[in-house]
């Protein structure tokens, strides 16, 4: 239906063209390199909406007047213009454009030619990620450039990825700042990646400094699509994907489980075995299968854009929907975007960019499901036998389990948790050029979000320990209003060989939200129409929360360029933030960077094979105020106690959060040196950057000593300093050989962190695991979040081994051990195995390097894009093995444990005996849980085919492409857990490489279609 409308619109557009006496120009567009025809090149009449594309043989035909200027453009080639004269034939040879150094880069409150950039900046455009069929731009960045690490935090529907730039820059929130069309934001999940035109990453402090406080972890600038000169462009695409569990855990079945439980009882010295006849148990329930599914994923995308001399407009509407491979979760998003620019006369431009996005999430059980599905005993059926189900409600028909884990399918049935977010992000700008060298720009942006979340908990009875007598319901409503106002004055002028740029700006920002929440109990029944607060009859509870953060900054930048060879940029800023105590609100930060374009020098100018060579050096500081609005305040909370003969509820109060009135700005300071070079007319290009970054007065929510009396509460504090250094390396090669075009890019990143100072001298411990204790250790001289535990040294094969494991004076080190137990090393040689002296760093989550390999291949109408990502040299901690690899405690284990476990001399030196009574504490935190986490993954593969245009040219369709693609197709790794690609657990940088039951990334197969009119 829409297609017809578009045709009508397009025909209307053409009416003015027919009104003049036009002639038909024909010709062929070919490549200057080898003379081959270029199909799909755009041919347009400059300044009008009239345009066409070349056919498979490079031929075109267009209506034009004498004196009109024709534009010939094709991706990867330099655009050419030719005026229409008497001839009716215009053949054009397009020059291949290998270099992109003349591309313009957005550098923050301004633009700069890429060749002149002196900081560490990388960029990609939509063609580099358009094959990635992912929900969020954060995922699409994976493997595209060096220094940008993208790791998955969860495979849950709608969840993005964790993006960090150059490893760790703070122990606190390490998330990057996104700047969407000039609007700084902390998350961009509302955006459809297809709306994005280009992405620039500012990696070092000198480049990011201009964004100040929030840019300390790096800045990613996103430009959404703008209308382009030419006729109305209509694009439609649709795709369907099927998500599969990429790797299923192999779990023991009922028979094996029963054998294992019996073995544990025997080893415990119990007389009665729990299972009389394990072999009769069969396979039992596979809880993992019961918890997972093949889940669909849909996307539809429609965009319209058009540009004229005085305006351009670009708009899109899209839908994205996804269910989870773990049952229960789902996500969908509808996004509308409208970008417009108008020129009001010669000096003034106004415009706006707006995105309205509605996101709905059905919250699954996510990480808990991974834990539960792997640990639940297979001997319990999912449902009660049918005769026992009679009279029970739909939430009560599940079998009770043997463990403290509730029946997983029952948990899913009771899970009614949804959230909705309606988000509007937009900005309007006014741009005034009184003279050619002066510009004033004012940008006012807002982010408005309304969100609701609702949960319902039905009444049910599975067993006495697993029941809910009274149903209950709760809701939260929140509202956010953020504005950001930038006023920027720039001055750019060239004096002979001297080019001077000055920029001054003030920015004002206010970020405010508040939310109310309510809950109640006892709804008359579980009918879906009654799951609202108004139906509750008791136990009403209400609360609210809020936050208001303001900031104000003044900044200036000077840039100077001599003969386009010597480049200098310096910036200064003063930031004020409401988050700090009165006397610490303001701080100053500076940066300076310089570049030298050697290839412009006389001695290199004539070197044929060298196209471009630039040396860069930069130093910069950025402040970081990444703390909540109330971090400085100690608040008083309500705590209720019972008093009196009447046993009455009595209000008490005590400190809630623990504030810190000495907080100051965190400062990130870094040095960067880099080289950009390209060779052979840009067919080969290389970029190398080395950085050294120091973060001082790092802000972190620090666990306090228990005797401080705040329980598990934490306090924000400036906890110390850290250094991280590393290297980013990019190499790419592109070439055309006849009908073949290819483009290969490899990027490698290395970043290593080291704690250099701890304010109180106390190491930082993080991740309190029920079985293993604190999971990571961050101490002076070590990396952030090292794994820290005991060191095993094989397994005692017999009593002699145990007695031989003694200190110099013959004291047996592990007197309570039995054959089959782990031998632990006495690291401090005190004759005892103790937590005090015998734990050490047993692994690091930091990779020696991470990499991305991109390949694009085009052959006539076929195209293939491939992305391989991975890491090398990092380690992974898997705490869930305390359950699945121990065979104790009624929990299920992996398939084969019963055969792998030590069962007599010589049977195993790596897997201890199975036992519940384990005086040796075999499964304490040791190197047993640490494994190599290196992997290489075929992250994405897409094969597309552009259908021959004669099939559809009559329908006025420019381009019709079909493709198949896959995400996460296969992985090479030695890691035995579900997925080695894991971001910091819940984005906590101290929990990198910790597989704490993370929701694994699914494998997704797609079929898609895109149409351009």
């Amino acid at each position, binding site marked *: 239906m829409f297609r017809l409308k578009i045709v009508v619109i397009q025909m209307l557009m053409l009416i003015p063209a027919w009104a003049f006496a036009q002639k038909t120009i024909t010709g062929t567009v070919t490549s200057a390199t080898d003379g081959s025809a270029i199909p799909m090149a755009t041919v347009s009449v400059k300044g009008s909406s009239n345009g066409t594309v070349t056919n498979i043989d490079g031929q075109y035909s267009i209506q034009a007047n004498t004196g009109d200027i024709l534009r010939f453009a094709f991706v990867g080639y330099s655009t050419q213009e030719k005026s229409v004269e008497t001839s009716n034939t215009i053949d054009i040879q397009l020059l291949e454009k290998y270099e992109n150094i003349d591309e313009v880069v957005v550098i923050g409150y301004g633009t700069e030619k890429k060749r002149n950039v002196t900081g560490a900046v990388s960029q990609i455009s939509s063609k580099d990620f358009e094959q990635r069929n992912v929900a969020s731009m954060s995922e699409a960045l994976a493997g595209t450039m060096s220094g940008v690490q993208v790791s998955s935090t969860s495979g849950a529907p709608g969840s993005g990825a964790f993006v960090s730039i150059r490893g760790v820059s703070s122990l606190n929130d390490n998330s990057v700042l996104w700047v969407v069309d000039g609007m700084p934001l902390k998350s961009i999940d509302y955006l459809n990646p297809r709306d994005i035109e280009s992405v620039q990453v500012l990696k070092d402090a000198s480049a990011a400094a201009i964004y100040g406080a929030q840019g300390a972890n790096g800045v990613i600038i996103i430009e959404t699509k703008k209308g382009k000169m030419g006729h109305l462009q209509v694009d439609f695409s649709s795709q369907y994907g099927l998500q599969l569990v990429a790797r299923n855990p192999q779990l023991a079945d009922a028979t094996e489980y029963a054998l294992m439980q019996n073995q544990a009882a025997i080893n415990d010295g119990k007389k009665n075995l729990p299972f009389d006849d394990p072999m009769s148990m069969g396979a039992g329930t596979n809880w993992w299968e019961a918890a997972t599914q093949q889940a669909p994923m849909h996307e539809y995308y429609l965009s319209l854009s058009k540009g004229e001399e005085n305006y351009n407009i670009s708009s899109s509407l899209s839908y994205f929907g996804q269910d989870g491979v773990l049952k229960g979760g789902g996500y969908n998003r509808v996004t509308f975007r409208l970008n417009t620019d108008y020129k009001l006369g010669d000096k003034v431009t106004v415009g706006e960019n707006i995105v309205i996005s509605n996101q709905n999430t059905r919250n699954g059980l996510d990480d808990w499901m991974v834990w539960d599905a792997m640990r639940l005993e297979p001997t319990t059926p999912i449902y009660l036998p049918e005769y026992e189900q009679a009279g029970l409600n739909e939430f009560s028909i599940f079998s009770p389990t043997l463990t403290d884990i509730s029946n997983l399918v029952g948990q899913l049935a009771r899970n009614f948790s949804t959230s909705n977010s309606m988000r509007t992000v937009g900005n309007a700008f006014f741009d005034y050029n009184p003279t050619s060298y002066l510009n004033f720009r004012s940008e006012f942006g807002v982010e408005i979000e309304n969100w609701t979340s609702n949960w319902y908990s039905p009444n049910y009875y599975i067993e006495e320990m697993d029941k809910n007598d009274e149903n209950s319901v709760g809701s939260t409503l929140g509202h956010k209003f953020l504005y950001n106002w930038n006023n920027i004055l720039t001055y750019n002028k060239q004096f002979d060989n001297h080019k001077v740029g000055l920029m001054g700006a003030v920015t004002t920002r206010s970020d405010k939200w508040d939310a109310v929440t309510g809950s109640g109990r006892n709804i008359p029944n579980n009918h879906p129409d009654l799951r609202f607060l108004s139906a509750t009859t008791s136990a009403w509870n209400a609360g609210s929360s809020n936050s208001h953060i303001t900031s104000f900054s003044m900044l200036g930048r000077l840039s100077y360029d001599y003969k386009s060879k010597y480049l200098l940029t310096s910036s200064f800023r003063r930031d004020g933030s409401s988050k700090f105590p009165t006397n610490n609100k303001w701080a100053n930060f500076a940066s300076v960077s310089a570049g030298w374009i050697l290839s412009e020098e006389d001695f290199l100018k004539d070197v044929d094979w060298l196209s471009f060579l630039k040396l860069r050096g930069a130093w910069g500081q950025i402040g970081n105020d990444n703390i909540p*609005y109330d971090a400085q305040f100690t608040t008083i909370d309500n705590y209720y106690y019972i008093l009196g003969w009447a046993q009455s509820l009595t209000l008490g109060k005590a400190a809630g959060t623990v504030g810190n009135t000495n907080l100051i700005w965190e400062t990130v300071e870094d040095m960067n040196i880099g080289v950009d070079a390209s060779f052979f007319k840009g067919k080969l290009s290389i970029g190398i950057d080395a950085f050294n970054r120091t973060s001082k007065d790092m802000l972190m929510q620090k666990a306090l000593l228990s005797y401080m*009396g705040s329980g598990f509460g934490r306090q924000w504090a400036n906890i110390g300093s850290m250094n991280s250094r590393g290297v980013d390396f990019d190499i790419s090669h592109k070439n055309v050989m006849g009908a073949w075009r290819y483009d290969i890019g490899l990027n490698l990143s290395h970043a290593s962190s080291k704690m250099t100072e701890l304010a109180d001298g106390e190491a930082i411990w993080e991740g309190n695991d029920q079985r293993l204790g604190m999971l990571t250790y961050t101490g002076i001289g070590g990396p952030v979040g090292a794994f820290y535990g005991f060191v095993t040294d094989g397994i005692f094969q017999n009593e002699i081994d145990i007695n031989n494991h003694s200190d110099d004076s013959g004291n047996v080190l592990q007197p309570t051990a039995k054959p089959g137990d782990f031998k632990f090393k006495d690291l401090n040689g005190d004759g005892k195995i103790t937590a005090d002296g015998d734990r050490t760093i047993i692994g690091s989550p930091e990779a020696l390097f991470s990499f991305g390999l991109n390949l694009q291949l085009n052959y006539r109408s076929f195209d293939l894009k491939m992305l391989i990502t991975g890491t090398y040299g990092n380690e992974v901690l898997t705490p869930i093995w305390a359950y699945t690899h121990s065979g104790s405690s009624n929990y299920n284990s992996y398939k084969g444990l019963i055969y792998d476990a030590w069962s007599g001399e010589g049977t195993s030196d790596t897997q201890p005996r199975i036992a519940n009574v384990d005086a040796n504490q075999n499964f304490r935190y040791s190197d047993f849980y640490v494994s190599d986490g290196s992997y290489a993954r075929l992250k994405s593969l897409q094969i597309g085919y552009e259908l021959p245009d004669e099939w559809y040219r009559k329908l006025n369709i420019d381009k019709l492409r079909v493709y198949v693609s896959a995400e996460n197709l296969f992985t090479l790794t030695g890691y035995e857990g579900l997925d080695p690609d894991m971001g910091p657990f819940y984005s906590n940088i101290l929990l990198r490489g910790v597989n704490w039951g993370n929701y694994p990334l699914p494998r997704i197969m797609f079929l898609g279609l895109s149409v351009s009119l």
Partner: protein
Amino acid sequence: MKEKILYILIAVVLLSGCEKFLDKPVKGKQTFDSFYTTEAECTQALIGCYQSLSPEDWWEMDYFWLIGDVCSDDAFKGNSIEGDQQEFGNMARWIIDSQNEWLDIKWRYSYISISRANLIIEYVPNADIDENLRNLIVAEAHFLRGLAYFELVKNFGGAVLLDRQPAPSDLIPRSSIEDSWLFIENDFKHAADVLPLKSEQSGENMGRATKGASLAYLARVSLYQDKFAEAKSYSEQVIALNDYQLEADFGNIWSVHNPNGIESIFEIQSNYDPVQYTGSALPVLTRSRADGGWGFGTPSSHLENFMQGDPRLIHTIIKHGDYVDEDHPEYDTQLDQNESGRINRKFYIGMDDRTPDDEYIKAPLNHILFRFADLLLIHAEASAQLGNDGPALQSLNDVRERAGASLANESGSGLLDMILDERRLELALEGHRYYDLKRTGKLAFAMEDFVNYNLNISTDPYDAGNQQGVLFNSGIHTLFAIPQSEIDASGGIIVQNPNY
């Protein structure tokens, strides 16, 4: 350049309004800076400190009270499902290390009480409120701080002694056990000097600390240090207050309908509220898994045998198949998930008194920490230790008489043994056994006897063969391990107990 100048002017104007723009206070909450000023606030701070005796959830404080029984010959971990609170099971099995979560929780939450008390002691004296009220609040804070330290010391030995709230960067080592006891005594003495008698307590304040409770704790603290003269003196002071009597009916002591009864000296207050979690977890923690409980801390046949013939047995243990009440004519202890086919009767509450929701955090049963019979037995023990057999017999027989047991007439060491046995009979499953055994030096013998009984003698259908106690080591287990997280976080300033 005119624009530039104008622009700078604009910036200056903007700046002047800036300081206010950047000033964003907390909304919707009081802050610490302005608290502890009015009478209401000071009182609320105190109630907040009481709340730390039984925080909202089951695991913070309530669960650990069972340790005194499961780390002894009176009870087992109870719930035989290995994976259900395995680390609690490790405590009972004496597989105790510094990373056991229950030790961390006990340590951590005791210091919440101490912190709240210290803030009161530090800030309330500056409040411009009625002097008597001010002194009362501060004295009660001393009581609560003393109580928290007593719990720490009896489990861990010497504590980190704090007489004010430390700054987060303060690293403070543990004090000696002697200094710790002294600190506790001073707190209770301060409280005893100021607090009212229980009989003087107003109706709405019933449940708050009293002079009697302070003196009673001084008696207990003295007894734990073998300071028998002081223990005798303090317990006599309590008796002389005439504030406490023994319940006529032993079965009424732990009745859910008898909060703050005549025998009660100090108890943690609990009641059901539809919204707030102000109840106790103990009834659910200890009840049978077939009866809505979790089945922890199940009594041993060793205890049952010990109580054989004593009228208190039926008020102490429910055995599988026992008649309990109309709803439970033949009690089901869920044998396949119960290590000993028995449950604790003292924390049992009947169907009519159970809460409509979340009973595991909302049960109405008050938890008695100190009752008059305990005080009489302290008096008896201290007197017997001092050779004053007469007063010792008097107090012992008061307790036995009320229980309906035969009166004693022993003397010397026989009398002392009988008093210690009486503590087991009277106070069984109330969380005292492990601490009594270790302070009297009888823990190793008791555990040896318990293991020998279970493995070689017992023919009990439910708990014969249970190996709990096999791993007990008297060189280690008279003090629990200091949480490793605390040692680590202090960079080793906090030192571990021997042999952990």
